[in-house]
């Protein structure tokens, strides 16, 4: 549904139709911002990377397969740019030490305000949260996720539904606590 709309917009953008960009941006900015904010906590730097990611994406539109998953391609581009920026500014600190020992320094994403995502990150198992990130936030199809994780499609489908059910149970807790 949304993927189809994005594909249609890509076709229009390839014709140089600038007026279609706002809608494309609105449909994709959430996923792209999330991907960037997992690595960068400085808003100005994150915004710069956001802008650079979209510009790079538009400049390489001729390489984008509109019948594939353009959002996934954009997210990959953004993640790589965020990683480059992160490494540029990396210094030896607790974050790196944690990661060196196999932990996850991606504790919170302060640039994203989503109590439900924060709670899911705390309460879901890591693979469950990863599945939710890939499908719900970044827009990967379950078939793509199955390929990435080398799992059967039916398994991913089942797991996806289980994760969504768990997230629905956490929903109330996330927003009641906020009050």
């Amino acid at each position, binding site marked *: *549904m949304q*993927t*189809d709309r994005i594909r249609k917009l890509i*076709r229009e*953008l*390839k*014709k*140089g*139709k*600038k007026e279609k*960009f*706002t809608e494309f*941006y*609105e449909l994709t*900015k*959430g*996923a*792209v*911002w*999330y991907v960037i*904010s997992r690595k960068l906590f400085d*808003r100005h730097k994150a*915004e710069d990377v*956001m*802008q650079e990611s*979209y*510009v790079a994406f*538009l*400049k390489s*539109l*001729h390489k984008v397969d*509109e*019948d594939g998953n353009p959002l996934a391609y954009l997210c990959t581009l953004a993640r790589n740019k965020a990683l480059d920026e992160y490494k540029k500014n990396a210094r030896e600190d607790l974050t790196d030490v944690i990661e060196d020992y196999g932990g996850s320094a991606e504790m919170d994403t302060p*640039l*994203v*305000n*989503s109590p*439900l*995502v924060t709670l899911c990150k705390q309460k879901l198992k890591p693979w469950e949260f990863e599945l939710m990130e890939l499908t*719900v*936030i970044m827009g990967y*199809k*379950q*078939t793509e996720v199955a390929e990435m994780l080398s799992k*059967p*499609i*039916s398994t991913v*489908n089942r797991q996806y539904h289980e994760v*969504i059910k768990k*997230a*629905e149970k956490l*929903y109330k807790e996330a927003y009641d606590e906020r009050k």
Partner: protein
Amino acid sequence: MNVNKKIKSEMRESAPDLADKIAQTVDWEQIALQNTAEKKTAKSKKPLIWCIAAACCAVALCVGLLLPSFFSSNSPDGGEKKVAYAVTIEVNPSIRLEVGEDDAVIRQYGLNEDGVLLLHKENYVGQNVDDATGAIMQKLGERGFLATDSVKVCVKDGDGKTYKDKQNSIIASMESYLAVLGGGNLEPMDEEEFERIEKEFKDKNLSEYEKSLITRYQETVLELARQKENELVSLITLLNPYSDKDGKKPLEDTSFLAEVYEFAEKYDYEFDFEDDEVRGKDIYKIVKELADDLEDLTEAIEEIEKGKDEDDYKDLLKDIFKLAEEHLFSDD
């Protein structure tokens, strides 16, 4: 409560608004040039056939419900057309056509549930009023309404006064259609009758009709969608054992093909392989495509099921229409 929607909404709200800034940075002419070199034929979404005639009625009726909104009263230059007069036709069903100065229909709507039903699938907007009323007479005749009751007609101008000349000319035109249809009775509506229809229309609050009809057809569309969902799951389960991403050897056992063809015919899919050389990788591609469609369909069903509890019937109707169009309709 829709977890997907909530999360996506929060992601969007957190993101900065950089659209204009980005758009201005890019050379759009250059982008167009780069992409005109090789224009790929867009892979169109597979046309899907009607499953059951009820779906036709369901969605078309849903479209009919939003006739006042969907069929715009805007003129080609974008401005709103002025209503010069309104033709009310009552035989129970009751319907109204709002007409412009050029005698072209600007808007149509049912004044009661039967009127809404009568107008479904029909679009008279833009037609000359005589052609439109003639077509309506034909439809009334087909439905058997002309056999027993008189058709009453009233034409009011923009100030709510009876527009006698126009009324007489429209009645004369409708009478000529009646003669062709084999008879029936046509007469001007008196003021009392007109007031009664107006009052009933305002009191009954047509949106309640819309709501009940939307709910009714939501169930029909959902039933069809769930049926397709189940069939997709069954077919994927059947094909999974044969699916092999790198499978190049022709499969020995192709007994599953009959079901694949049956599904393809029913839902108008096109699967690309030679009968006697079906390979594991062909099946892998099919399973992938079916799984993608299943995901989209399931998401669409969930959105509509969750929308049941919300008050925004317009959004719900759009979702129902979208599901039917993308998963149950044929492009033909």
